[in-house]
């Protein structure tokens, strides 16, 4: 079983390298993070705060947008694309089980994503470190950012698989993926903000809002990273929430993981029902 999962994963990784996916994602992540590190750090000097930590705070906000997008773009083709090409018939008529098929895809895509994040953000960390700007704590902040970003990516990979397994055409799945990104990463926050400002849920807000933030992996990711950085004084905005959370920030991390696991289970169930 493990052998077949790894076989599917290895092929996915190879395709990721062949079609320049990894190169492109790494390039985007490295480009943005280097730009933030080099251009955005000018005001940090006089504050006497570690420059790496400041960069990580900016990168956390960037990751919320970029990582889900990259994950969804990797995942949307997983099932619908195989149906489109006729290869799902072939794969599922071999001794490969449907759960093995999807988990293999997931492991492969997770590796693609981790490689891109590790190299992309790692380059920036290495640059800051080598220019003598960083301390050990800053390096740890970077490691935490990369680790939690891969976790965020995993959750959105799973969401992408659910979308991909719900349609039979790759192009439809791609459209759904973009809608999902817009809804979860952009509109979700706007909607919460709108509710808060309008006061419509005034009596509910103390209990409902933290839960609403936890349920969305993108928000949970932001909460955890900003809380972990203690960066409220640096970045403001959402970070203010982190200080007054009614739960430990680690719960946010656990929430991402459980959302990812539950969504992945749903995707496996959906793939089981497909007639290829």
């Amino acid at each position, binding site marked *: 079983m493990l052998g077949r999962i790894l076989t599917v994963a290895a092929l996915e990784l190879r*395709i990721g390298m062949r079609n320049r996916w990894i190169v492109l994602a790494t390039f985007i992540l490295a480009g943005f993070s280097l730009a933030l590190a080099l251009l955005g750090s000018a005001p940090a000097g006089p504050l006497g705060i570690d420059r790496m930590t400041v960069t990580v705070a900016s990168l956390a906000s960037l990751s919320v947008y970029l990582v889900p997008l990259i994950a969804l773009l990797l995942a949307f083709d997983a099932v619908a694309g195989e149906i489109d090409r006729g*290869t799902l018939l072939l794969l599922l008529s071999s001794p490969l089980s449907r759960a093995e098929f999807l988990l293999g895809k997931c492991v492969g895509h997770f590796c693609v994503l981790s490689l891109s994040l590790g190299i992309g953000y790692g380059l920036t960390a290495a640059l800051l470190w080598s220019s003598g700007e960083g301390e050990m704590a800053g390096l740890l902040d970077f490691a935490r950012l990369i680790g939690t970003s891969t976790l965020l990516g995993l959750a959105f990979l799973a969401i992408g698989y659910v979308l991909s397994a719900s349609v039979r055409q790759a192009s439809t799945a791609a459209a759904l993926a973009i809608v999902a990104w817009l809804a979860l990463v952009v509109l979700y926050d706007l909607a919460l903000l709108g509710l808060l400002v309008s006061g419509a849920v005034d009596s509910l807000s103390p209990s409902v809002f933290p839960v609403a933030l936890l349920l969305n992996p993108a928000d949970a990711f932001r909460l955890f990273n900003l809380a972990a950085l203690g960066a409220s004084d640096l970045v403001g905005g959402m970070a203010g929430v982190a200080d007054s959370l009614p739960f430990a920030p680690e719960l946010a991390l656990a929430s991402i993981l459980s959302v990812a696991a539950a969504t992945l289970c749903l995707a496996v169930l959906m793939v089981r029902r497909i007639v290829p």
Partner: protein
Amino acid sequence: MTPALCVAGVDRSFDRRAIIRDVSFALQPGERVALLGHNGAGKTTLFKMILGFLDPDCGEIAVLGHRPGSRAARCATAFLPEAVAFQKNLTGAEVIRFYARLKGEAPRKALSLLDRVGLAEAADRRLGTYSKGMRQRLGLAQALIGRPGLVLLDEPTSGLDPISRQDFYALVEEVAAEGATVLLSSHALTEVEARTDRILILSAGQMVADDTLANLRRAAGLPIRLKVRAGEETVTEVASRLGGERVNGRSVELLCTPAEKIGRLAQIAALGDLVQDLDVHDPSLDDVYRHFSRIATTDTGRAASQHKGA
């Protein structure tokens, strides 16, 4: 001996429309069998049921004695779907190694199959550069990994040029000679030619024929068509003496059974100068096929012909 594939009384409908009706047949080990039917006759549905992707509404299917879709059945079956498109940026060798690992075979051993289907030189080229015939041969190589007992090929030669098609059937012959049962589908009898042991014809979801090509020809009892060409002045006389039907002003067309053929030819030869030329048309493979596929459509009347049009 356990049949390689046994299909007994299988029905399947979609949205209350019957796609497969009471289909039964059995394949013995080492047989090469062609499953013929036009588009929409139910060939792909039948394949999906044999692979365990669809359950029959009623009836039984057994693959080498196992339930379709069970691990034992999947390990013993190989399948080449119609119009399969592997990732273009992989090489032939990578595809073979991948499927060998999935099937639990040694990748290195499986690579020798590329040699067998004539792709050894192209093994390290990307699939984007392969021709259609090469991609289909790669598909066949993939299907042969691990010496399957039952090989299912869904329209493997559609869109191939005649030479590629002959090469493909030569490979199928070799595979069957080693003991594998091959069931391949096609939409034309001319495509499978004489390269199969037995022919099944599926029409509007029903199995209307299950026999060798020679027996099918005999059973169809289609007439031989003789076309006699005469001059413009003599055509009336020729028609009256032979008793045939006049076509396009200067020819006479006669139908006869194989037994009458020689006698008829003698009659024509006796006309001497009145006849300018003679064409003899044996019923073509397409005529035989059309004869059998018509059976179902006339039997089941309007519903079937509506389905065929859909």
